[in-house]
């Protein structure tokens, strides 16, 4: 995208409060925009705001004045800024993902919010972990122990943790769950060290929700011949060619399908069917979150477990299981 398109085509801006290359969130959103620009007659642009949080509000304020039809901004940190700007620029449609504006706080009829139930996705991978550790598969050991590694002790990350723990206990009430935080998202060495310590204490499935630090945890699992579970993107596919020994241990990943949801939203916007002025929660059913069912998953996970996972997914869909959340708790 990015060319000076005809003036009648829809102009879409994606603002990232970070940079591309994170192999998760922002890459996924950017991928969504690229798909949109190929499939539809739209003009798109992606602006990287970097990691200096003090720059985000001025950035958005300036961009909002740029006459865009749609401005997409993700994460909770930007929601408040969007709230202010949405009132100032009623002509522009704002799409926020992974958070919602507070619709009770004002007239946000030009804001569409996308929420993902990461706790539901984490529940499923938790259940898988609970089954794997109790199994007699190659990489499973005897400890009946699994590990969670978070980037920081903050609500979004804890939402992963809560779902993960609940899922594991659902299928394996006696499972021992170790949890630790790296303290940041950019120290893979420490991430690896934490994972090694958990493995040493008996963990044989490691779920890492810790950005780049989490990569270190995946490597530890690969080296120590236990299972790992990736986060946000399909980390097996990302690592398959470059780091085959790490990838081999990544049994699945808890996916947050930002790309799909962006495409979904734009599609409806162009149709005129997008529910602007509302928040939509995309769970497992809506494909907002999910687990990666790639070749490695197929190879490792026995059919019986897959069936059990599918059963759990249906139960969540049906509301028979309500997954706890750390958000707003």
């Amino acid at each position, binding site marked *: 995208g990015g060319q000076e398109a005809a003036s009648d085509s829809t102009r879409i801006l994606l603002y990232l409060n970070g940079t591309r290359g994170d192999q998760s969130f922002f890459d996924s959103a950017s991928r969504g925009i690229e798909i949109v620009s190929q499939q539809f007659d739209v003009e798109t642009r992606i602006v990287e705001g970097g990691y200096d949080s003090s720059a985000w509000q001025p950035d958005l304020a300036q961009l909002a004045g740029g006459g865009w039809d749609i401005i997409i901004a993700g994460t909770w940190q930007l929601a408040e800024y969007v709230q202010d700007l949405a009132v100032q620029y009623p002509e522009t449609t704002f799409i926020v993902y992974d958070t919602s504006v507070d619709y009770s706080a004002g007239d946000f009829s030009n804001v569409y919010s996308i929420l993902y139930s990461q706790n539901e996705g984490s529940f499923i991978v938790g259940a898988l972990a609970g089954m794997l550790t109790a199994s007699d598969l190659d990489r499973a050991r005897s400890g009946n122990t699994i590990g969670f590694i978070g980037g*920081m002790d903050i609500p979004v990350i804890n939402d992963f943790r809560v779902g993960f723990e609940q899922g594991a206990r659902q299928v394996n009430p006696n499972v021992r769950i170790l949890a630790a935080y790296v303290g940041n998202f950019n120290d893979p060495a420490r991430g690896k060290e934490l994972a090694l310590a958990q493995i040493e204490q008996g963990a044989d499935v490691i779920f890492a929700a810790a950005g780049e630090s989490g990569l270190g945890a995946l490597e530890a699992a690969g080296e120590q011949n236990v299972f790992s579970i990736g986060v946000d993107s399909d980390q097996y596919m990302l690592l398959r060619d470059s780091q085959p020994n790490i990838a081999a241990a990544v049994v699945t990943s808890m996916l947050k399908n930002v790309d799909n949801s962006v495409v979904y939203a734009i599609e409806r916007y162009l149709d005129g069917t997008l529910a602007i002025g509302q928040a939509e929660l995309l769970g497992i059913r809506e494909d907002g979150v999910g687990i990666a069912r790639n070749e490695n998953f197929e190879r490792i996970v026995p059919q019986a477990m897959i069936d059990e996972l599918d059963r759990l997914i249906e139960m969540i869909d049906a509301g028979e299981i309500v997954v706890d959340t750390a958000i707003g708790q």
Partner: protein
Amino acid sequence: MQQFLLKHFEAIRTTIAILIGMLICILLIILVSSSPGDSISTFLFGPFSSQRTIASIFEIATPIIFTGVALSIAFQAEQFYIGAEGAFYITAAVGTAFAVSTSMPWFFHIPLILIVSGTFGGLWGLVPGYLKARFNTSEVVTALMLNFVALYAGLFLINNFFRDRAAGFMVSFRLPESAELPRLIDRTRIHWGVVLALLVALWAYYFLYHTRTGYEIRTVGHNQKFARFGGINVFKVIIIVHILTGAIAGMGGVVEIMGIHRRFNWQDLPGQGWDGVIVAIIGRNHPLYVVAAAVFLGYLRVGGQQLRLMSDVPFELVLVIQSAIILLITARAFLSQWESRMVIRQAGEEADA
């Protein structure tokens, strides 16, 4: 002419350093940008393109004036207490905690928050200060370490006791309105904090150069043995300096929350403490020059922001460019040979005459 050049040498040197820094940036931009002309003018003039961008310069400068002035007091006493970063962060957290758990009319609330956070910041600075004054423990190292302690202690405080659970992120409750510093101009975030910052800088200038304690501080900085010899209580001075630095940097943190964010939302050290080191050194530890240096840094940042938003130059290059300019400005010997040659020529001429 020669007279003029010599008299204003410092200003001229800085200007030329900035120009050369800019030139390097321009070269870098030409290398990576597909439309270098536009990119360059975006970088140079973008900061002045609208009321909002101009206001941005001062929004950015405000907290840096606090930390810069705070550090210049420490540096004047030769205390390399580079812990403004940590003091800024943790005091903002503590100040927020205080603000959200109290309520009263704004004309009590705002001063009280500033007093409480100033006191806390002072106590925070007292730790390395006492260790330095009493045991000669390197304040550089303790400050570096306490920065990390501040981060995790601040997170712990907000996370466990003042977190807004309705929010999906690690943020505190919103400040009550009585604790917000009002904005000065509509549609910008420039707020009363900038006035406070200027007052603090003016006060620091007066304090350092026109009061007894200020004189004591500068004397200790120039020659500690001499200060002791003259009867100055060096222990007391070192303690005072650290307390002041912690207090002012800390107030900067809480002012930033009260004026800009209105709730505590930093999950990482925000960097204004390091910016303070930069402007203190560029401003040669003189509080009034520090203000100028902070505004200049604000200008550079906004230029970088414009470049990020308006051009195809990658965001990381902006970081590189800013570092390059800062390095050049602080290069003191830059052009100094030229100056001394001129002085020598002039002295020689006078002696001949």
